């Protein structure tokens, strides 16, 4: 167990270092001169040189990289080229918006996905299974940005019952927050719900055919108890992993969703930074995303190895 944890920790560390190098080099491969972008198109060569010096852009690239990593480890991601505010603080402001959106979407996805998956597995060859499968297929085929546009068209313009844009924190006004986040969260959650539904369904089908379920039935346990207490409980292991691994999809989805519903979150920050060529901000946003993603993957892997000991036996590589 200890060796497995150590190996995964090392692998994650290597990946993280590679990520910082990719981000660092990637930013430098972008068209346009960051010093000119900072100083404005009109600035004279002396100002540009001063900006270069101030940001260390006149130093050799490896030195720039070392400085960048050193600062990042202390939580200093530099200042936004557009607003002049610290990148870390700006990200800190945007994250709660995205987290509230993502958690709400995740809750919707898990609720719909698991209940539909259980119904589809238990009520095989009925209208209920057919309906659940169709909804999952549509959930996977409808791009969430178009679903978002249609939702705005119907619930904000044709029948104005929900606001089309804006954000209210759940800590300021829970009711208004719910009204503002309902549409974006449903839009963001449906794709995930479809994936969870399919995983739950196939895990449940496998579990329902397993020997321990037959034993439970033979012992005289009721149908509901077998389904929920035995089969679903074991299916949840698989579902937990999927939920963890879908974090990246959720972040990608949040970028688009926040763009449509004009939510001042992490995704909107990313797109705005890209369009204004705010290099320090892009660097910070990508670094935070990648770090979070690597961390979650590590956590999921470790949790999984605790649940299923076969994973940490070296021979089984998935």
């Amino acid at each position, binding site marked *: 167990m200890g060796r497995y944890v150590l190996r995964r920790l090392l692998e994650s560390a290597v990946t993280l270092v590679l990520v910082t190098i990719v981000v660092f080099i990637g930013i430098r491969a972008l068209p346009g001169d960051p010093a000119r972008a900072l100083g404005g198109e009109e600035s004279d060569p002396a100002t540009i040189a001063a900006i270069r010096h101030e940001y260390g852009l006149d130093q050799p690239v490896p030195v720039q990289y070392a400085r960048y990593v050193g600062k990042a480890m202390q939580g200093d991601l530099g200042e936004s080229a557009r607003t002049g505010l610290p990148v870390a603080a700006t990200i800190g402001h945007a994250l709660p918006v995205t987290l509230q959106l993502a958690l709400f979407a995740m809750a919707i996805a898990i609720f719909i996905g698991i209940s539909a998956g259980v119904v589809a597995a238990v009520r095989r060859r009925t209208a209920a299974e057919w309906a659940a499968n169709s909804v999952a297929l549509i959930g996977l085929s409808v*791009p969430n940005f178009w679903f978002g546009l249609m939702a705005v068209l119907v619930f904000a313009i044709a029948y104005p019952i929900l606001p089309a844009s804006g954000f209210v924190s759940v800590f300021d006004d829970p009711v208004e927050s719910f009204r503002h986040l309902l549409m974006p969260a449903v839009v963001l959650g449906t794709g995930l719900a479809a994936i969870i539904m399919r995983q739950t369904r196939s895990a449940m089908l496998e579990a329902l055919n397993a020997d321990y379920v037959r034993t439970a039935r033979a012992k005289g346990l009721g149908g509901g108890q077998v389904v929920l207490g035995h089969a679903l409980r074991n299916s949840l292991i698989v579902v937990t992993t999927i939920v963890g691994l879908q974090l990246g999809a959720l972040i990608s989805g949040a970028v*688009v969703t926040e763009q449509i519903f004009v939510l001042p979150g992490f995704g909107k920050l990313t797109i705005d930074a890209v369009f204004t060529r705010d290099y320090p901000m892009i660097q910070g*946003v990508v670094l935070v995303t990648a770090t979070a993603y690597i961390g979650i993957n590590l956590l999921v892997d470790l949790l999984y190895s605790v649940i299923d000991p076969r994973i940490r036996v070296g021979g089984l590589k998935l």
Partner: protein
Amino acid sequence: MTTVELVDAALPTAAPVGSRRRAWRRVLRNPLAVMGLFVVVVSVLAALLANVVAPTPYDHTDFSAFLQPPSPAHWFGTDQLGRDQFSRVLFGLRASVIVGAMSVALSLAIGVPLGLLAGFYGWLDPLVSRLADTMLAFPFLVLAVGLAVILGPSLTTAIVAIGVAQIPAVIRVTRGETLRLRAMDYVAAAVADGASDAVVLGRHILPNAINALIVQATVAVPAAIIGEAVLSFLGLGVRPPTPSLGIMLASAQADFRDGPWLAVFPGVSIVLLTLALNLLGDGLRDALDPREVRR
């Protein structure tokens, strides 16, 4: 020498071809998959023959008929500049089809060799796997957005961005299959027979890994089509005046109240195409993967 050749001929390399033909027959017996196949074929033909099939060129403006709702003259209505939306959807589908096919081809062209090498040569595995992990550490859209910014928005950018983002999944699938197949007796027999690494990889491992790659592609193509629409919607993919379903949806936002149909038809087209691809993909997966059939 002759005995060696006899052994060689007896190696079961022809097996996957026969099983693939059976798989096709199984797909054609699945009504949903056949429906999907039909919609995919019609969409691809309509997209590729758009300049023959479409009632008007995609940039034909008619200021006497702007923002017209759907009618017999304009099936999908017209936009702010009086352009026929049906024609523009057909030309937009062309971008979807091109990006869908080319980006998946790109990811296979790079990912398959890397996956084969990583699975076959143990010493290369950590290197390739860390590379794949690094790419996976960027959520698809973040990676695609970054590449789109470096390369500048265009159709090629969309292809490269989506193709590159899909490489890690291809590497993982190919690597996994190679690891599995390398342990098979018939591969050991081929090695014992003196077959070179290239022959083992190209004749004995790759043909048997293709089923898994087809399954992977059935997921990747619809994802690439949606990816193109998203990138173009955000202004990072295809640029106007070239029509793309994503661009049409982005510009429809300005006329939500006066022309809601502008946001409906391009979206419905994407949904129909990806739905059809998913149905076809599900059919192929069931036909190719015996484990799925049991369920």
